């Protein structure tokens, strides 16, 4: 194995987790597996706002693997600011009242590997290019993947975004959704291979 990602090789020194270190060692990840379908998806999970909300958008796409085949057992979560760029601290993501925007959504892919969220286009947070944070879980993913959905209309903010600037120019487009309707944005996720989506790891 010579293809370890740096994110996985960097880890703790041997002192971590010993009483003297005072540092608690992270619990490892494990795959979500194939059998979460009756447990994690929930009613209205993909609907951060109802479809009739005046600013509702569709955020959707297909998840594919290294052979280009649809991933039919992926689970996606999104987390985002509201249209004004505010992050919600409201309860109620799991039992939506139809009015409160909590900023969190969860959707499983269909038999075609397709996912759909109904949400609003986020506003800029602290002046940065607005985006939706996406977390991907699936059988075969030993550890979830993070990525971000940006919006192509935000030309000026995208041009100066420091995160996008860290991404190789020829892969940057994988983070930018394509508007495919008056209120619809497409964001396909390619886990591996040609056009592989840029996945992020976060420094704190």
């Amino acid at each position, binding site marked *: 194995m010579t293809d370890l990602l740096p994110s996985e090789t*960097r880890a*703790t020194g041997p002192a971590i987790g010993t009483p003297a270190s005072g540092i*608690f060692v992270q*619990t490892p990840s494990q795959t979500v597996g194939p*059998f979460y379908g009756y*447990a994690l998806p929930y009613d209205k999970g993909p609907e951060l706002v109802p479809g009739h909300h005046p600013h509702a958008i569709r955020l959707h796409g297909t998840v594919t693997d290294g052979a280009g085949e649809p991933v039919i057992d992926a689970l996606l979560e999104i987390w985002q600011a509201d249209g004004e760029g505010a992050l919600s*601290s409201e309860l109620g993501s799991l039992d939506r009242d139809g009015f409160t925007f909590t900023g969190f959504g969860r959707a499983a892919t269909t038999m075609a590997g397709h996912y759909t969220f109904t949400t609003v286009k986020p506003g800029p947070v602290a002046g940065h290019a607005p985006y939706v944070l996406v977390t991907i879980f699936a059988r075969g993913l030993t550890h979830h993947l993070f990525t971000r959905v940006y919006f192509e209309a935000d030309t000026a903010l995208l041009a100066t975004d420091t995160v996008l600037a860290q991404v190789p120019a020829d892969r940057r487009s994988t983070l930018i959704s394509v508007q495919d309707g008056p209120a619809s944005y497409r964001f396909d996720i390619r886990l591996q291979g040609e056009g592989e989506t840029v996945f992020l790891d*976060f420094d*704190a």
Partner: protein
Amino acid sequence: MPHDTLPAPARGSGQESQDSVTAEIRAIEADAARRVQQGGSPELHPRRDYPPYRSSLLRHPTHELVRVDPEEVERVSPAFGHTDVNVLESDLTIQHVGEPLGERMTVSGRVLDGEGRPVRHQLVELWQANAGGRYVHKRDQHPAPLDPNFTGVGRVITGDNGEYKFTTIKPGAYPWKNHVNAWRPAHIHFSLFGNAFTQRLITQMYFPGDPLFALDPIYQSIADPAARARLVGTYDHDLSVSEWSIGYNWDIVLTGPKATWMEGEDAHD
């Protein structure tokens, strides 16, 4: 034709033997140990590209992850609470008319961050197979019985000290199609949210002493033995209740990469 001259089954065909998969597992573990001997840090998480787990072959990214500073979006988490989760959802044995079959147990512990601080009032979700090793999932067609009194799904909101507690039954081991005669050790799936979205974690809790550990490519995808041992709950007799339930303890530590990025502080003792 002598048996040992037959062509080996193709990787990922599902027809490979446990012995050949185990040999791959041990080779990767040896590689990880060698890296540590050479001064590298132990691997805290599973390898994303872990060939013994065949489903990872076409699903792991081949590019390095791009390391960036989290913005405010990643530094906070959604809020969950009493309007999301009913207190009864932490007891998986009372969701139906009758009692589920199996060994009644409690699993309890604390959710902490990398500094040992409690993760308060956050969502913990759990799902598992029944005592026969069968999930209530249409794609699970393993011919073990479903239990009409057990669904295997629970949720809880952590308390002021990050504590959680579930009452459930011990799940059974079950077969899967990674290779011939592949069995998953008994486990419970856990989903956790931290104070920051960077701490999001889905993982599995195992039970001490399981003979399937050494054979299981999912458990072994964490190449460092000490790291994967963190997924094994502890039997705690003080948590067992006389003539009622067996008690396990399992603490979960969520932390962002920064808190584990200790390269400059590697101890050399």
